[in-house]
């Protein structure tokens, strides 16, 4: 994992001092509310429905045990003893006091953490696949490139006041996309060209929100050395020509669509031609230096524990289920990737208490070289677990509440905080997630249904990614009453698709029934081997409509 050097430490300390000064000036009335707003947002500080909210950056989802423990202490000392893992691999605190935020930032800086650019109209936290570096099918480890982007985008003087927020995601696997890159402002797919050189396929102009779009490819192959200069060219074109007159039309996706992807790409190439060979072109030395932070941990050579696991599964049915669903293969023999689903029914998806944060830290130390990753599905990954210790790990996590073996099933819901916490919400989303989880509490049935992405957002902003859920739920407001609209067929993977709206919305109490009817149609129509999405794509939306609105 990346470790700060003296430069990073100094910049982090200067940032804390700067924000302390800004907060003091704001509290003293020297900064108007509208002037302080972008400054506090660029430090992750929202003012929310019930209290301020602080969004803490977790660059590309990586956290060390000491950082988890510090987060736990911060939630205890400055908040109500819990935090929230978000769909952008960040952590949110829901109740900090404004005056305390500089102190919280100082505490974070001590463990090499920050809240820089987690909000506001600037380049946000760069996200990636939570299985980076440990799976066998990736082109190369994307995390060094994410770190290179993190440094470049941090306090970028030209791009701190963009027309809108700007999100970059990187994916390295050829088979899957766990980072949803095609619904980001810039999505970078790592590829190799015919000569075997490493580079990126560049998607620009994807996004969710009010006008969801899948980002078109504007360059098939960008050599790795050109990463930063090309990003700079894209951002400069966006900064100059993106719309600023209407906040809903200010995203880069609107510009790309208005110009056409081809014309947009030409503008970028023209801009890039001037800066391509500037000193910002990455050097081999710089790439190597960052890559050196992401080398393999000290894996012991262990044999595959296949026989042992077979025996253990036989004895413990719950373990068997967990192995089949929450444990993935690892590139190193004898190791495994474990996902702890933070989706116990009755707990808001992504919520963790201070105690749980410490428990996760202990698990990381004990089982996975002191590191974890946060996923955009609001789960936590222990990426380097020895196979012969899986049973022990499982026995430890079940009582903690994150041993639910439902990864990628219908109850592994992505859910935004909605009306319970978020000032922008039109409807609550957490109770909807909970009601559906209660309805589908039979694991065998869930396994039979296979992978289904159910995503819930409490408003058009789509934090919960409802547009790209196989089943998407969107909270809407009608004359002060909460209703829920369903969309079907969305996907955030390599086959990224925006879901189609089923029809008129439903009352909250009907939601479990509605989802059950949708599932019934799938069960009736599917052929063996078909996932929910396959069936939907084959039969179309009508059979679902007929059943649900019958």
């Amino acid at each position, binding site marked *: 994992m990346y470790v700060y050097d003296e430069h990073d430490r100094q910049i982090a300390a200067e940032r804390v001092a700067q924000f302390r000064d800004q907060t003091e000036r704001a509290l003293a009335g020297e900064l108007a509310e509208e002037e302080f707003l972008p400054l506090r947002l660029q430090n992750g500080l929202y003012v929310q429905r019930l209290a301020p909210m602080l969004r803490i950056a977790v660059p590309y989802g990586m956290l060390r045990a000491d950082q988890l423990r510090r987060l736990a202490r911060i939630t205890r000392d400055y908040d109500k003893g819990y935090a929230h893992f978000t769909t952008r691999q960040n952590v949110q605190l829901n109740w900090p006091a404004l005056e305390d935020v500089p102190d919280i930032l100082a505490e974070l800086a001590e463990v090499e953490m920050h809240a820089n650019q987690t909000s506001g109209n600037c380049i946000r936290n760069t996200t990636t696949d939570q299985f980076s570096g440990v799976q066998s099918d990736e082109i190369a480890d994307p995390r060094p490139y994410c770190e290179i982007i993190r440094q470049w985008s941090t306090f970028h*003087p030209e791009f701190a006041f963009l027309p809108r927020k700007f999100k970059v995601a990187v994916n390295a696997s050829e088979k899957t996309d766990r980072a949803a890159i095609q619904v980001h402002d810039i999505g970078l797919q790592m590829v190799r060209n015919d000569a075997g050189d490493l580079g990126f396929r560049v998607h620009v102009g994807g996004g969710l929100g009010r006008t969801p779009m899948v980002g078109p490819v504007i360059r098939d192959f960008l050599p790795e050395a050109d990463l930063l200069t090309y990003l700079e060219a894209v951002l400069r074109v966006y900064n100059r020509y993106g719309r600023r007159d209407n906040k809903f039309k200010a995203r880069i996706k609107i510009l790309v669509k208005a110009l056409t992807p081809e014309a947009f790409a030409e503008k970028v190439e023209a801009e890039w031609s001037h*800066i391509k060979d*500037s000193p910002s072109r990455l050097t081999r030395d710089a790439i190597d230096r960052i890559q050196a932070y992401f080398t393999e941990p000290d894996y012991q050579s262990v044999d595959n524990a296949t026989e042992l696991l077979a025996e253990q599964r036989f004895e413990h049915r719950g373990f068997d289920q967990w192995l089949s669903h929450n444990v993935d293969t690892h590139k190193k023999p004898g190791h495994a990737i474990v996902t702890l689903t933070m989706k116990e029914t009755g707990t808001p998806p992504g919520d963790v208490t201070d105690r749980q944060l410490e428990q996760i830290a202990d698990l990381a130390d004990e089982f996975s070289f002191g590191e974890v990753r946060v996923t955009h599905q609001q789960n936590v990954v222990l990426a380097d677990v020895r196979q012969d210790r899986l049973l022990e790990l499982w026995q430890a996590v079940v009582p903690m509440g994150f041993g639910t073996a439902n990864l990628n099933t219908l109850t592994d819901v992505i859910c935004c905080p909605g009306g319970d916490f978020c000032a922008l919400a039109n409807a609550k989303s957490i109770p909807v997630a909970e009601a559906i989880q209660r309805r589908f509490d039979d694991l065998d049935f869930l396994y039979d249904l296979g992978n289904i992405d159910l995503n819930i957002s409490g408003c058009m902003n789509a934090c919960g990614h409802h547009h790209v859920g196989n089943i998407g739920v969107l909270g809407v407001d009608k004359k002060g009453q909460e209703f829920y609209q369903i969309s079907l067929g969305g996907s955030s993977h390599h086959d990224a698709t925006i879901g189609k709206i089923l029809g008129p919305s439903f009352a909250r109490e009907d939601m479990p029934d509605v989802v059950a009817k949708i599932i019934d149609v799938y069960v009736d129509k599917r052929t063996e081997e078909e996932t929910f999405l396959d069936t939907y794509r084959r039969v179309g939306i009508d059979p679902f409509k007929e059943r649900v609105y019958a």
Partner: protein
Amino acid sequence: MPDVISQDGSIRQDDWIVVPRPAEGESLDIPEQSKALIPADLWLAGYEHFTGRDDIGVWFDSHDEPEMLAGKFQELPVIAVNFPKFSDGRGYSIARLLRERFGYANELRAIGDVLLDQLQFMKRCGFDAYVLRADKDINKAARCLNFFSQGYQAATDTDLPLFRRRAS
């Protein structure tokens, strides 16, 4: 007359007047006694008349394309870029283009809704003079220009990004 802040934080009297864009049908009202900054397109339109004068400079608005003066920048003693709203970040790109693409070497000043917390970004993008919005405390400018002792990126204040400086 307002004060102007230099890149090093020092404060001096401003002897330039920003001439607003004339309304439809009106003509440019250039003051007799003072040096004047006029809208860039009007300078271009009256090029024969204005070129070579050291008392006339131009200002760009945030939506202007500085490319319109390509090849002529060195003739200008001062260029100002207007920030109609501090949250409109187009002026930063304009500044970098002027410095890095067009090699403009004379004074480049930020005008308009110029606040303290944006000064360092402006400096890094190539502005070397700033006219702060009148209600802001000019004595805090020097500190705000230097909150950070270095930046990660290459910009006009350093052509070496941190990753290159680290290597040396």
